């Protein structure tokens, strides 16, 4: 059954540029599923390119950054709902906003807004600093990890771990370091950006794989697509990938979902070690990935399933998918009047985006300057 068109779905993370976010493919997936109702984009920056892409969101609202806290997010949503539109389902797609939305889940439910998210405990279990505990508690293989809080500890790394090592920020970014000088260099730059602790992770040579899945909160997988990224940017973003099928990888994924009893969407980053041919869990991202459009190509519309689960629909687990489907990311320039972007910057919202595409709008400045 298609999602009823009377519903209003809110989606975050509309950047589709160098650092692509999942919002754009999530909206495309919902449209491909036949959803013709209203979709609103919740954005943090007027340069999130998906705001201006054709046939995306109907309306866009600027949101306070997640660092401003759950109350600020709630106040903005109350404004949107009071002045402009109801929201029936909200799909947060960025790591940094998950915790505030998890804390708001019950309150939003009382406003009629449904989400399908992990619990706070599950969210904390997948924190990069806690990943080693998955090995201790559930026997899920993970690379060895050390947490360091000062440069003196950085100089002692070679006594505890074989070099090279991966130096990782708490939230984003990871660098391979071959000596203590490189470790301290990356320690300082990551500390300035993402704070402490800095994660020192054993370097394992091997092949990386990703899995996007939704868990039902009882240990079962509702849907799941494994891929191998075939083109990766300097920042580690996949710009091409192919859908694969590997029974051992499937078993590894099942064990993680069963152990964590994960509820909601996630992306697993997994490495097959060249040394022992075993699978190691590198990271759990608690949201859909930016490559989720590939899932439709493979026969599973994961964003559509996520929305249906949020609405309380019972979904029969999807087992089949087409192996060998690939995506190749393509970026295009969107041309529009700067005054249109200015409208979003100054009043924090844009309307009628699907009926009046920004590329066809003639936004002028009052004094006719600026072209």
């Amino acid at each position, binding site marked *: 059954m298609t999602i009823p068109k009377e519903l209003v779905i809110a989606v975050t993370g509309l950047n589709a540029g160098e650092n692509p976010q999942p919002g754009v493919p999530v909206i495309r997936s919902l449209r491909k599923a036949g959803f013709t109702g209203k979709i609103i984009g919740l954005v943090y920056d007027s340069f999130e390119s998906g705001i201006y892409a054709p046939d995306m969101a109907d309306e866009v609202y600027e949101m306070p950054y997640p660092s401003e806290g759950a109350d600020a997010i709630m106040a903005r949503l109350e404004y949107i709902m009071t002045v402009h539109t109801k929201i029936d389902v909200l799909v947060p797609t960025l790591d940094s906003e998950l915790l505030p939305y998890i804390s708001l889940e019950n309150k939003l439910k009382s406003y009629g807004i449904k989400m399908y998210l992990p619990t706070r405990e599950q969210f904390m279990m997948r924190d990069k600093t806690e990943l080693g505990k998955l090995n201790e508690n559930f026997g899920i293989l993970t690379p060895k990890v050390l947490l360091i809080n000062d440069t003196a500890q950085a100089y002692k790394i070679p006594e505890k771990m074989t070099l090279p090592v991966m130096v990782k920020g708490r939230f984003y970014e990871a660098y391979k370091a071959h000596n203590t000088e490189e470790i301290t260099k990356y320690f300082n730059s990551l500390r300035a950006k993402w704070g402490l602790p800095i994660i020192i992770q054993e370097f394992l040579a091997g*092949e990386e*794989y990703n899995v996007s899945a939704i868990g039902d909160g009882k240990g079962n997988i509702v849907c799941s697509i494994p*891929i*191998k990224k*075939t083109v990766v940017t300097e920042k580690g973003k996949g710009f091409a*990938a*192919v859908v*694969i*099928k*590997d029974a051992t990888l499937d078993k590894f994924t099942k064990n993680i979902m069963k152990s964590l009893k994960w509820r909601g969407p996630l992306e697993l980053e997994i490495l097959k070690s060249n040394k022992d041919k075993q699978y190691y869990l590198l990271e759990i991202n608690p949201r859909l990935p930016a490559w989720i459009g590939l899932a439709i190509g493979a026969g599973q519309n994961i964003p559509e399933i996520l929305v249906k689960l949020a609405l309380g629909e019972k979904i029969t687990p999807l087992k089949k998918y087409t*192996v*060998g489907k690939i995506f190749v990311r393509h970026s295009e320039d969107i041309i529009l009047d700067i005054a249109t972007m200015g409208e979003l910057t100054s009043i924090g919202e844009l309307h009628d985006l699907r009926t009046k595409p920004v590329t066809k709008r003639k936004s002028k400045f009052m004094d006719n300057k600026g072209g």
Partner: protein
Amino acid sequence: MGTNDNFKRLAMSENGFLFDPQTGHSYTVNEISMEILSCLKRGMDESGIIKHIMDNYDVTEDQIKRDYNSFIVKLKQYSLYEETDKELAKKFKK
């Protein structure tokens, strides 16, 4: 057949494009390599494959033996094939 017959899982297209659905790796091969791979997948042994290719292509036995061996080396290099001890012993006897 070998202790590792991973080549059997390769998907082959007519124009020499191969895809490994388990690892996501892809390869391109020439016409003779495609023929060798098809024969291997059908379970033919080295002498059968060499005879089959000599019957169908204008090549000498030396040429096709070289091609066969270099293709097997490539399969091993990509962890797609590993001979059994028995096969190695037979080869060594030759």
